[in-house]
């Protein structure tokens, strides 16, 4: 078993690496240009733009850096142009010159018909322009790229700064994480409380009205779009239903359930703190939605698993021995039927942290899902990568946990 564990852990690293490369690549090619907000600003000169790009590392190569990050001018005198072309089309304008020995930063590169061009920036004098690569001597470190910078940082726990909010990404993520966990864990418990008894009873009374009804229910739960269901819940319980007039002055006429947020800000301001029942009040709708959905899934698994166990011989033996039905069901059948369910539970655990994106967006719940959604809209690289990598790690880790737990619970399984 230990060897199996070690093997699995060693296999996890390349998987996570691959995922990080793939996701990083996708984010890089997203068509959002962080510099676009500065482009129309007349007060920002092209030199300022070049400095900003250099400081933010925007034009650094994404994965492998074969053009170098800094170099020294090799030739006696080097002319800098505003474009990476020497001929053809419009004439490039000379924008500056550098003398031999000057250290420059290499901020961009282009290979075209007229040669291998790089854009250099003389930091102190803020002079920037294009010149031929051969005019410089540069030390090339292929790992000096955006991806590897990110990789080396994250394995040390540095999630970087959000380029939108200028705060450490980890801080932003950790702010939201508890809210998501609160929501998801209560929904988790709720869905199991609903699904397990119903699943068991459906299996015992197979083909009864109860069973048929809940089979249909589970079917609908699988097919309904979760975000639509949330909208319907809000429409019904928030817009349409109001507190009746006999509920007292403070409540009458107000919406029956809150449609958004984790707590009432005005209440907090009035009281100075948030009372526990305000949290509960705001939790009811989102948890209901998540529980019904999860329950629809688990109900089916529970029923199927239970059915398979009930028809086994040893259950018949237990009954023949004269054991009480309750003991037979809970002591023998359920214990065995729960094993596949536990596996599925373990596999669903990452959702506890990843958050239900749709639920949090619909109910404005300040959690990780909503953070991801906003970051995706603004293409906030660090936060996106942080959330995705945390989730991917959790998925891989819980896959392993599921296998181990399964082996632990079912003595017929042996890993080596």
């Amino acid at each position, binding site marked *: 078993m230990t060897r199996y564990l070690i093997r699995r852990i060693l296999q996890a690293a390349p998987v996570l690496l691959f995922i990080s490369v793939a996701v990083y690549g996708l984010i890089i090619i*997203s068509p*959002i240009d962080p510099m676009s907000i500065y482009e129309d600003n007349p007060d920002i000169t092209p030199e300022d733009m070049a400095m900003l790009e250099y400081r933010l590392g925007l034009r650094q190569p994404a994965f492998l850096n074969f053009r170098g990050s800094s170099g020294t001018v090799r030739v006696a005198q080097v002319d800098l142009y505003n474009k990476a072309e020497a001929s053809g089309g419009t004439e490039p304008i000379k924008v500056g010159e550098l003398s031999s020995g000057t250290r420059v930063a290499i901020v961009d590169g282009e290979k075209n018909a007229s040669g291998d061009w790089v854009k250099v920036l003389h930091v102190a004098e803020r002079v920037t322009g294009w010149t031929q690569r051969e005019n410089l001597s540069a030390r090339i470190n292929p790992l000096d790229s955006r991806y590897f910078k990110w990789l080396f940082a994250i394995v040390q726990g540095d999630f970087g700064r959000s380029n939108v909010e200028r705060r450490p990404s980890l801080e932003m993520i950790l702010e939201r994480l508890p809210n998501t966990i609160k929501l998801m864990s209560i929904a988790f418990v709720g869905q199991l409380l609903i699904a397990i008894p119903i699943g068991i009873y459906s299996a015992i009374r197979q083909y009864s009205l109860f069973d048929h009804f809940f089979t249909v229910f589970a079917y*609908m739960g699988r097919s309904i*779009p979760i975000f*639509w269901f949330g909208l319907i819940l*809000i429409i019904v319980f928030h817009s*349409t239903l109001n507190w009746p007039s006999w509920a007292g002055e403070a409540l009458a006429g107000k919406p029956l359930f809150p449609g958004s947020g984790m707590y009432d800000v005005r209440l907090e301001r009035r009281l100075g703190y948030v009372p526990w029942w305000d949290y509960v009040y705001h939790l009811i709708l989102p948890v209901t939605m998540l529980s019904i959905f999860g329950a629809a899934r688990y109900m089916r698994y529970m029923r199927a698993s239970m059915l398979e166990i009930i028809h086994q011989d040893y259950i018949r033996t237990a009954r023949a021995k004269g054991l009480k039905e309750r003991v037979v069901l809970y002591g023998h059948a359920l214990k065995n039927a729960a094993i596949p369910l536990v596996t599925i539970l373990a596999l669903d655990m990452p959702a506890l942290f990843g958050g239900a994106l749709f639920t949090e967006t619909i109910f404005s719940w300040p959690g990780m899902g909503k953070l991801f959604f906003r970051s*995706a809209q603004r293409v906030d690289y660090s936060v996106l990568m942080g959330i995705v990598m945390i989730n*991917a790690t959790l998925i891989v880790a819980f*896959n392993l946990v599921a296998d181990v737990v399964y082996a632990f619970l079912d003595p017929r399984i042996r890993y080596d």
Partner: protein
Amino acid sequence: MSDSEAVRPQREVVTGTREERVGRLAEAMRPEDMGLGYREEQTMTQLVWRAFRRHKPAMIGSAIVLLFALSAILAPFLSSYDPEKTDLDRMLQPPSVQHIMGTDELGRDLLTRIFYGGRVSLSIGVMAMALAVTVGAVIGGLAGFYGGWVDNVLMRFVDVMLAFPSLFVLIILALALRDLPIEALRGTAFASVFSIVLVIAVLAWMQVARLVRASFLALKEKEFIEAARCAGVPNLRIMLRHLLPNAMSPIIVAATFRVATSIITESGLSYLGFGVQPPTPTWGNMLKNAQDQMTRAPWTAIFPGLMIFVAVVAINFVGDGLRDALDPYKVE
């Protein structure tokens, strides 16, 4: 009767020449008399179709799917309103005789938008399924047929793809592929549809790959494949003409369910704003537009989602019916 008579069989008196006796014997032993013959020839398709017909939800589902498909194809003929033309005088009108489903926030007739949105949503579902099934079948087929290291490598790839946190990666993919570098399509509505199809398919092919691999692994050992190989049939032909047709049943069922999940995925993405961009209507982005006024105008939110729900349930019914009809072990 005494015991001995019951135990000992009676001796029969047989008459006739040898030819006559053989003739009578042959007459008596017709397959139909022994309950062995078919009353009529039945092809596999006929058998499947009859089993399918017996599955009531599947028939209801098929009828609904047909209805949706027809209304999607015939959309221009079904409604005279323009789905994209705004008419701010008629904003947010509740359902009435002129506008059976009401109007949306820009004054467009909702029913018309549902028809045209159905076109986009349903075709995205089908196209994504086609792409996912093709890719999955190729990868799974190669893995199952060749086995060995090919199988190992391809299945590791499938495992890695399954480790991606799907919703997150879907969104990031949709962002990245928003401006596809295909010049001919750039700027048209079709570009964003195409990129969504790609996005959904990329994360949907794994299940089909596993199915096809399992089928191929099992079928590979059968004698008719061995015979084909002995006859010198090249590998590719074996895969395409011998293995694949026999593996079709689980593929067809999986493909049907894939359409349903693709429709939900597309509407989810569009609802978040990462899917098909307005003004092209899809059921998902109609829900997105409806969110701001769902308190005042709930019909804008109710109807598009209802359509998604009904379509998905119908497709699931059909899938279940197909699965039961194609199941060779099903007890009648």
